[in-house]
């Protein structure tokens, strides 16, 4: 029953959120701030995780394909496929759900308990539209950029690990990267990323906006935002893979 009630509240909040902004100038201003907070500030974390993930994939694939009948270029091929299809869009989105989701929920939640949202409302401003919509748009624009960046760094990490550990010659790894490439893999990854961006920002925005109480509840709702976003990312990963790839 509680789930049905919260789902209804979520839909109503989203209907209030996705509307024409009250003032485009203020929306653009807020959008730039959110791109900075949600996107640019995540570059370091994404870079670090991507390089190491790519390196680990390359090493694990090399270890598992230790067979003279399988060409070593398969290491590059499999690293590419795994990074592009799953690790960059899904794992990085899960990481962003933790970092960005908790940031959004705690920021909006704190505004709720300190009456800043009430202040916006009585000024005649639509608070969800002013607070959540720029974050959704910022994530939809910037997360795909981060994911492409993650793919490139993951492949670089795989190359470094494969070549410098002596498991794969550089030429073979690059040959594998270029073999049987299907450009739709990138489209698929970016479609997933945009859906995940919407999930993270809308769920976190909802969790922050509906906080009742004080600082303890802000913390609790931030945790819920991360948990629910992560669950929905995994569920939608399966749905989108079924719809787009199978």
């Amino acid at each position, binding site marked *: 029953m509680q789930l049905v009630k919260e789902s209804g509240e979520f839909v109503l909040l989203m209907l209030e959120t996705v509307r024409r902004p009250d003032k485009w100038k203020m929306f653009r201003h807020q959008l730039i701030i959110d791109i900075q907070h949600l996107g640019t500030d995540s570059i370091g974390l994404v870079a670090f995780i991507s390089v190491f993930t790519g390196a680990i994939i390359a090493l694990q694939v090399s270890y598992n394909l230790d067979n003279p009948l399988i060409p070593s270029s398969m290491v590059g091929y499999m690293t590419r496929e795994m990074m592009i299809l799953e690790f960059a869009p899904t794992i990085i989105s899960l990481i962003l759900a933790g970092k960005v989701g908790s940031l959004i929920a705690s920021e909006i939640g704190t505004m709720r308990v300190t*009456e800043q949202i009430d202040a916006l409302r*009585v000024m*005649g401003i639509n608070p969800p539209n002013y607070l959540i919509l720029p974050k959704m748009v910022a994530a939809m624009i910037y997360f795909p950029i981060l994911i492409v960046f993650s793919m490139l760094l993951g492949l670089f990490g795989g190359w470094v690990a494969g070549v410098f550990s002596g498991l794969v010659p550089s030429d073979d790894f690059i040959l594998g990267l270029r073999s049987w490439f299907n450009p739709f893999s990138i489209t698929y990854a970016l479609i997933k990323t945009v859906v995940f961006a919407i999930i993270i920002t809308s769920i976190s925005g909802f969790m922050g906006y509906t906080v009742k109480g004080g600082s303890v509840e802000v913390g609790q709702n931030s945790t819920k935002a991360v948990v629910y976003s992560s669950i929905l990312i995994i569920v939608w990963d399966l749905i989108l893979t079924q719809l787009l790839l199978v």
Partner: protein
Amino acid sequence: MIEVKHIFKSFEGQQVLKDVTTTFEPGKTNLIIGQSGSGKTVLMKCCIGLHTIDKGEITFDGRVFSNLDEKKRKHIRQEMGVLFQGGALFDSYSVEENVMFPLNMFTNMSTAEKKKRVDYVLDHVNLPGANNKFPGELSGGMIKRVAIARAIVLIPKYLFADEPNSGLDPKTAEVIDRLLSDLTQEFKMTTVINTHDMNSVLQIGQRINYVHKGELWWTGTNKDILTTNNAELNEFVFSTELTRRLKK
């Protein structure tokens, strides 16, 4: 003038406001007083549209506000200034950005005009030169004054203040009271202040509404309150030994 007509409000079956009818007069500081939990904050939140009333009507200069949807309320909302209990300043904005916020949202003034207006209102609340400070750097009294500056920057017709003195020392509380009273006179606003501070009641209460257990129990001025025979009001106003002695 703000008219509150027979309003009822309940939360999860518990009746918080029962048939409250009153008026808030223009150019006067109208106070809502009452014990904690009496319903005074709910009454104010109903007036500013943060709570939807169950029954009754609230009008602003004859314009019905309570029955309008959010979109239609917008016009009346822009004539309101609200001072929240904690100030409700936007943490990530400077004082200037906080005060300028309503101007950015609702006017097409140039940057120079907006800056001039911000300086004008900051000067009025005795905070000249505080433009670049952030809320985290301000004292409780300064936060209240910045919040007042933001509330009056559009020169509203109606000003609402929810417990403007809470958490302030008596001297700063008096400064805030005097400021609200002076601004009311200067801008001819209809000011509604929610308080349980007896100093405020006696100093600036031009029209006082006493709310008791969700009902409007008594109305009068700060002079009337000293001589009233209303038992519940007397118990509230003269609750300490000191005030009882003063009355005698």
